[in-house]
């Protein structure tokens, strides 16, 4: 029997098949339906960072003079590098070539659950507790001061599933000694009839209160309203891509109260453009996950982020995922660089300059992350995962902007361990 090709007058065949597809839920991938099963997850994070002054010589030492406040009110905001302690501006040891100093250590615990409700809804709840201890600079990478703080945070999201889309409403609350954050968000998605294109639109409001633990300081407020629009597109049966555009308008207090001469503008507008692409390789059953983000804000900072991850299932339910991340930003308009390679005092603010910051996070630098994650499916319902990442940040690696070579090199590594259970 001669084989003939299916010609374009396949109309009847397609019409009947399309009709079959429109029967209730016969196809497998109903992207917009509530999850069939509930899930509870737990994940632990152990993070620690350090800095090294490049060059040889010198012993590892760190001089940080700290003054403990009355009672045990040493506070800190998580991983921010700010400190309540008042210290003398000194500590030149961090400028000695070859010296290294430990900085922040974090232990975080998160429990998360997702519960499907009545077939058309799902409720997600997360709770995080973390504690951070260590030392952080008061300016540039100098004058490390000790701190310790704990944070409690929770958030709730409720999603309603429709046949062609979803709506999610969420709220979050985070509290630490000197910082309270409240967030509200709404996100909607709408899919095309063939479910190959999905549009999403989201908006959020954040309302933060900052209570600097410094004598005489008053409470401050910071608010932001943000929006996001995105499109997700199925390109082939092995390719899916997404493009997102976000904008945030923030007003209020953006300075770091624990850093020397830190006075930032009262408005911060941020724009992000992000594309992501996942590609599945049929031969190896592996998946490549790529993303690029462009960031620009009214502080004058532009940043590029490139993420690449490869997910490779191997035998017996194991999966291996190596990852690489590249990052670069230029300095904020009001950033003040170090005045010498081994600075012993903060750089004076130039006369007439209104806004200033000597926070290394406002400087120009590049960063590299290398990581590996391993996951294992223990039973049909339980799986666990473990991830190790190593992060290097160097002012030398900045793609653009004015590099501040007086900054110490920054390194961090983290381990995450998690377990997920379906019910």
């Amino acid at each position, binding site marked *: 029997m001669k084989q003939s090709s299916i010609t374009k*007058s396949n109309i009847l065949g397609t019409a009947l098949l399309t009709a*079959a597809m429109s*029967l209730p839920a016969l196809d497998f991938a109903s992207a917009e339906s509530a999850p*069939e*099963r509930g899930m509870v997850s737990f994940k632990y994070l152990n993070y620690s960072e350090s800095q090294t002054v490049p060059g040889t010589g010198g012993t590892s030492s760190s001089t940080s003079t700290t003054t403990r406040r009355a009672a045990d009110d040493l506070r800190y905001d998580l991983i921010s590098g700010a400190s309540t302690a008042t210290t003398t501006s000194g500590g030149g040891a961090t400028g000695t070539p070859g010296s290294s100093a430990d900085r922040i250590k974090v232990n975080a615990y998160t429990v998360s659950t997702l519960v499907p409700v009545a077939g058309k809804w799902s409720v997600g709840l997360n709770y995080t507790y973390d504690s951070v201890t260590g030392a952080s600079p008061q300016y540039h990478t100098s004058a490390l001061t000790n701190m310790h703080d704990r944070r409690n945070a929770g958030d709730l999201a409720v999603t309603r599933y429709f046949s062609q889309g979803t709506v999610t409403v969420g709220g979050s609350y985070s509290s630490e000694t000197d910082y309270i954050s409240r967030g509200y968000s709404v996100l909607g998605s709408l899919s095309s009839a063939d479910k190959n294109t999905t549009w999403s639109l989201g908006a959020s409001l954040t309302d933060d209160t900052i209570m600097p633990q410094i004598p005489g300081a008053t409470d401050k407020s910071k608010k932001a309203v943000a929006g996001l629009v995105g499109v997700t597109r199925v390109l082939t049966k092995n390719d899916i891509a997404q493009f997102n555009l976000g904008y945030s308008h923030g007003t209020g207090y953006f300075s770091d109260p624990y850093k020397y001469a830190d006075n930032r503008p009262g408005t911060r507008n941020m724009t992000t453009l992000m594309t992501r692409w996942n590609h599945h390789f049929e031969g190896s059953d592996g998946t490549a996950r790529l993303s690029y983000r462009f960031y620009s804000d009214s502080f004058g900072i532009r940043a590029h982020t490139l993420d690449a991850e490869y997910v490779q299932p191997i035998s017996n339910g194991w999966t291996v995922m190596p990852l690489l991340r590249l990052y670069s930003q230029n300095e904020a308009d009001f950033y003040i660089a170090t005045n010498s390679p081994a600075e012993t005092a903060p750089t004076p603010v130039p006369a007439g300059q209104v806004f200033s910051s000597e926070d290394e996070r406002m400087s120009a630098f590049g960063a590299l992350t290398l990581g590996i994650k391993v996951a294992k499916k223990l*039973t*049909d319902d339980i799986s666990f995962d473990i991830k190790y990442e190593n992060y290097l940040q160097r002012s030398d690696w900045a793609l653009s902007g004015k590099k501040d070579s007086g900054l110490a090199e920054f390194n961090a590594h983290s381990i995450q361990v998690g377990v997920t259970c379906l019910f």
Partner: protein
Amino acid sequence: MAGRYSSVLSAAGSLIATGAMNVYRIGFEAMGGVGEVVLSADTMKRAQAMAASAIEEVKRIELKYSRYHSSGIVHRINESAGDGWTECDDETVSLFGYADSLYESSDGLFDITSGVLRKAWDFRNPGLPERELLDALIEMIGWEKAERRGNLIRLPQRGMEIDFGGFAKEYAADRGAALLHAKGIRHGYVNLAGDIRVIGPKPDGAPWLIGIRDPRDHGRMMASIPLSTGALATSGDYERYFELEGRRYCHILHPGTGMPVTHWQSVSVLAPLAVHAGSCTTIAMLKEADALQFLERSCTGFLAVDRLGVVYQKSCDPEYPKSPTLS
């Protein structure tokens, strides 16, 4: 492939293969025949629990769309023929929409009102019906005559009946498979008396080998089709029939003549959905000599055996038995 698997039999469910993941087979009776759910799971208990939910869905559809269920929707619609309107739920309305497509795509051959012809044919008592009886029954056939308004339906003539038997089984196979997939099953299939919807290939990625029965030698497999995804359905003149004076009269009746079709011994179709594969096999049987053209454009692949035993196939890549006879 055979070397990696061993089979062990046990009670209501059987462990049919061990390896990286166990494969279980759970048998049951439904839709007037034997059904099975084959899936991979960690334990027998889990396999039975998963299969139970699929079997429950199959039985739900069987009961809901049974002609005999006295408070069921089909009975209510048929009882009101020539009378008033019956209100239907969303699932039933969507099945009517599908019946419309079937009617159009088959040029009126696949007609869900043609079930009345069973009053003329009793396959347990061989005998040809009277011409007058057949003509009277043919008068009551015609899906185009059924009146529909939103979710309401009315059969305008007394004696008219609708019957979902033509695709209910395949629809149930699709629903069962989709349910298992939603529950996380990725390897297995749902088989309802030969109408199969695959959930996913074997745990090692190899396809399932589904046998197609020789239409004239029941014990023998004529071919086995490798299936990793999609569905396979078969219609044949051997499922219910009688022979009289050397001629075979099968259960697939032409709505225009009231007589059984004779051109094909069996038609098997590969398609993404069981309901589509099953519809194509039935339409092909009804189209008789014109079936090949229809099959060429309607499905992924087919294997058809005509009344003389000549085999026609397209894109099926079947594996034929090596030896001439296989028991």
